[in-house]
Every structure is written in C-alpha cells, then in structure tokens.
C-alpha cells in the first residue's frame, strides 16, 4: 500500500510538473507580443516550409494552430484568452464574424502584393471592398463520378443527375443550400433565388430526383464514394480533390449550368496582438512565388493570378479546379439570405427528404 501511494505521488508530481512546464512554455511563446505571430488555420492547409521561410525573412516566430470547423474557430475567438493574429474562416463565417465585431479591418496599404489577386475574387458580397478579409483559396460545388462504374456515360451538368439510368446511384451532401442550390441552378435560376414560385419549382424537381438518390449523408460521403458505394456524389471541390487521390476512377466536374463558389479567407481577429506582423504574414502569403508553392502543396484553387502563371500547366490548365472563364462567370457566392429565408430553404429541403420513392 505504502509503495503504491509513493508511486502514485511520483506520477502526480511528474504530471503536474509537465503541465506547468507546457503552460509556462505556451505563455512564453504565445503571449510574447511583438515577436511572435499566432496563425489559426484548418488542419494541413499550408505548406509548413513557408512558415520557416517567413520566420527567416521577418524574424517573427510563427505559432501555428489548427481547427476543424468554422464554428469551433469562432467560439475560440469569441471567448478570447488565446491571441490569434491571423485566422482562415470560410466566407459565410466571415459574414457572421463581421456582425459580431470579431474582426479588425485590414490596411490595404500594407499589402502591396494584393495586386496579384485576380480581381474576380475581390470585392465580393460577403465582404465588400475586402475590408476584413483577403482570399486564401477558393473552390466550387460539383459532381464526383466514378468513370469505371458509369462506363462511358459522361457527366457535364446538374441535369445529368436526373438520368433514369442512375437509379439509386447518387449520394448528396446533407446541406440545404447546396441541394436546393443545384436544383435552382439546373433550372437556370440563381442559387440565391428567393422567388417563392422558383423555390417551389426547384423543390418539385428535386422530388423527381428521389428514385436516383441512394442517401443524403454528411462527411461519410467521402468514404462511401471512395469505397464505390455509389457512382455519383454532389460534393465540395475540396473534398473531391481529397478523394480523387484515394480512388483513381473518380472524376470531378463543375456543372455547366453554374454552381456555388466558396472561399477561405485570411482575416485578423480582434484577439490579435501583433497586427503589424499579421499584415506582414498576409502580404507574404500573397507573394506569387509563395502562393504557388502553397497551392502545389494544398491542392486547392488559388485566387492569385500571378501565382497561377508560375504553376505547371498540369495544375493551372486543370479545368476541374480552374474552370474556364465562361463557366466561372456562372459561379455564384452564397448571399446571406437572412434567417427567415434560410429557414424556408431548410423547410423545403426537409420536405424533399421526406418524399418517398
């Protein structure tokens, strides 16, 4: 018994010692102010060699932390406590963070490299004049299909989903805006449409898709598509590029009728202590050479026009991730439709889910 107690006390002492040490280290690093910069980004969403390069160039030490959902990130920033100098939320999160005053304005004079960004991707409805955010990567919503399972059938647009040959072959991502959006797009309406008769038309069209739908699922969609559980899936291009690496028969297409355009953007949260450093970091990431290197690593689409020129043709000419201009024009960013409209979208989506074959 005595030995047991002693053993436990030693373990406790060591554990608390280590806890204190990490706490101390974190404090020394994280709250140091001037010479450190805390970057808060999605997991595996930057080439870490760039962080080293940034440290060498500026002498600022980077602390890199990751999150796995916009909601988690917002909660942490809302709570304060940790100083995040740069964060990378998606566009709808930016609209919310702006409303809740969680962001600091960005000084464009300190970002000479901003000129490299394709003007297409600037001044968008979620952040007019890019007061609070600078685009980091972008993507689309589209169709992933399995070439082997579909044999020679080619998928070009949303309307191909209604092909009666695809009975029980389609997986949908469980998102009201995505699903209602593609139905609206297939009818050549805007995916931000609020006209009641258009919405009812889109919902009725979705009901007709029911025989082709195998399931409406969440993140499992990636695993199910890789395992060839279904031949087609409606997914975000980011997920598509991830699973195409795991199953070579998978192919991604941005539908010809138009689709959603989404953005991840760099912002400076109100918790920032090193605002000067944050600007330096954003400017550094906008540098064409760095942006190109980052794009090669991450595999998403870069909004940086100069960087795109530096990339190999294999990447920059890939129409799946860099659709041609005539298609890009048809892509739309989600507008904040307000709680009431969003609730209506969800109601229609729920009704569609309840529609039985």
């Amino acid at each position, binding site marked *: 018994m005595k030995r047991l107690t002693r053993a436990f006390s030693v373990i406790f002492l060591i554990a608390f010692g280590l806890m204190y040490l990490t706490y101390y280290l974190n404090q020394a690093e994280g709250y140091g102010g001037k010479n450190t910069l805390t970057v808060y980004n999605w997991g595996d969403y930057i080439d870490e060699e760039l962080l080293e390069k940034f440290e060498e160039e500026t002498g600022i030490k980077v602390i890199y932390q990751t999150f796995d959902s916009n909601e988690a990130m917002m909660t942490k920033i809302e709570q304060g406590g940790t100083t995040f100098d740069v964060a990378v939320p998606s566009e709808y999160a930016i609209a919310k963070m702006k409303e809740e005053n969680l962001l600091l304005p960005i000084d464009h004079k300190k970002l000479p490299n901003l000129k490299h960004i394709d003007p297409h991707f600037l001044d968008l409805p979620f952040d007019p004049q890019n007061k609070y955010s600078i685009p980091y990567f972008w993507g689309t919503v589209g169709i992933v299909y399995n070439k082997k399972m579909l044999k020679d059938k080619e998928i070009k647009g949303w309307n191909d989903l209604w092909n009666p040959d695809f009975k029980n072959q389609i997986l949908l991502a469980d998102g009201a805006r995505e699903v209602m959006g593609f139905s609206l797009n297939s009818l050549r309406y805007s995916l931000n449409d609020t006209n009641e008769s258009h919405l009812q038309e889109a919902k009725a069209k979705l009901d007709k898709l029911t025989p082709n739908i195998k399931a*409406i699922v969440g993140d499992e969609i990636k695993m199910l598509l890789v395992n060839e559980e279904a031949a087609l899936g409606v997914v975000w291009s980011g997920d598509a590029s991830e699973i195409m690496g795991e199953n070579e028969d998978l192919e991604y297409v941005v539908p010809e009728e138009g689709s959603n355009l989404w953005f991840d953007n760099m912002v400076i949260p109100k918790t920032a202590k090193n605002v000067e450093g944050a600007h330096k970091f954003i400017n550094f990431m906008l540098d064409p050479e760095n942006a190109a290197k980052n794009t090669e690593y991450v595999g998403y689409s870069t909004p940086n026009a100069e960087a795109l020129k530096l990339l190999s043709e294999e990447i920059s000419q890939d129409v799946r991730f860099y659709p041609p201009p005539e298609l890009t024009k048809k892509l739309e960013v989600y507008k904040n439709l307000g709680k009431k409209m969003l609730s209506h979208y*969800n109601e229609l989506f729920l009704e569609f889910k*309840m529609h039985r074959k």
Partner: protein
Amino acid sequence: MQIRTRNLYLIPYLTWILLFVVAPILLIVYYSFFNVDGHFTLGNYQKFFTPVYLKMTLSSFWYALLITGISLLIAYPTAYWLTKTKHKQLWLLLIILPSWINLLLKAYAFLGIFGTYGPTNKLLESLGIGTQQILFTDFSFLFVSVYIFIPFMILPIYNALEEMNHSLLDAANDLGASQWTTFRRIIFPLTLDGVKSGCQAVFIPALSLFMITRLVAGNRVITLGTAIEQHFLVTQDWGMGATIAVFLIIAMAFIMMLTRKRK
C-alpha cells in the same frame, strides 16, 4: 427537529430536479412561443399541424412502434431462455456488452458491414442470392435500431421472469394446465410489468432517434428527432425545434401513463 433535518437532506435533490428537469422543460416551452426573429408567436404550433409535420409525426410513431414490436418479439423468448440457462450472469453480460460501446462507433461499423462490398453482401453472393442494397433502407434502419435497443428490452423482462414465483407454475401444472395456458394465464400476466418498462425504455428513445437516420438510413427515414436537430443546428429556428420537442414530451408523458404499473 427531525423533520427539519430531513428536509435539509432534500435540498440537493430538489435543486437538481429544479435545475436539470423543471427548468429545461420550462425553457423549451418558453422558446416554442418565439419565431426566428425572436417575436412572440403561436405560429410554430400552427405550423406543427401542417401536413409536413403531421406526416413526420406519424412516420416517427410508426417506426418507433416497429422497433418496439420487433424488439419485444425477440427479447421475450431470449429473456425466457436466459432464465433457464446455467451461466445466467455470463449470458446477461454478453447481451449487455454491446451497449458499452459508443453508439456512433456501432453505427459506423454497420456502414461497413452492410456496404455493397461488405461481409453481408459477400455472404449473400456466396449463397447465390446476389448483391442487394442493404444500407440506406428501412431494413437496415430497423435492424440497427433494434440491435441498439434490445438490451433495454431484455433486462426488465428478464428481471420480471426471475422474480416470478415458480411454485405457481408447478401448481398450474398439477391442475392440468397446458404449457400454452400456463404461459397465457400465468407467466405473461406476471411479467407484464417487465414488458411495460421494456417498451417504455425502447419506444421513447426510438421516437426521437436522429443520428442513425442519417448514418444508416441515409436520411431516407425522417423522424421528429431529425427535425429537431436540423432546427437547432442548421436553421437556428429554435422556436420550431422547441415546439416539436414540446409535442414529443407530451407524447412521452402519454405513453408513460398508458404503460404505468398498476399496483
């Protein structure tokens, strides 16, 4: 004096009930009177009586009824057989064991087991039946739900069977009752309380299932639970979510009344 100290001991329990039972229910009722914009309204209740939600309520009840019925059909003979076996505790442990594993993990496991290239289809293939779609069907939904809930049905029935006075069976036997008569007139009435609490323990959670409806049924089955989850997490229409929850609470209270034990 004695009564006063006894009342003092009640304080922690009362606080607990007040904070974690009464207050949440009141909050749910309170929220159900507000619309998305935070204005007072009765519209949520009106909306509940539209075909969409009525249909959803009916289908929730239907699936919960099926799950409870199938569980009971399997659980009663199992519990009966359990009381006859030698190593009762071991068998009981084996039946309870799966409920120690996280629900989400079990649901994910079925994605693989029932998949197009999973073991179930391999078996069907080798039997000459050929690959079937099992995942995302009513069958898979009912199967997984029954699998998850069945321990909660077996346990109370088992306990009731164990508590039964066995000399009654001998008496029935002596008086010439057939096996079926014995079961119908003695065993079943005496274990009815166990059956009732088993049905409560299965029907009520089955009514508000939500995660399995997406994972195993691929949103092909929509229950009131799914709608509540949607309203709270996606739409942020807390009022409508709360309204559905109020109806669920009423339904559950009603079921409790129907199945309460008679002394």
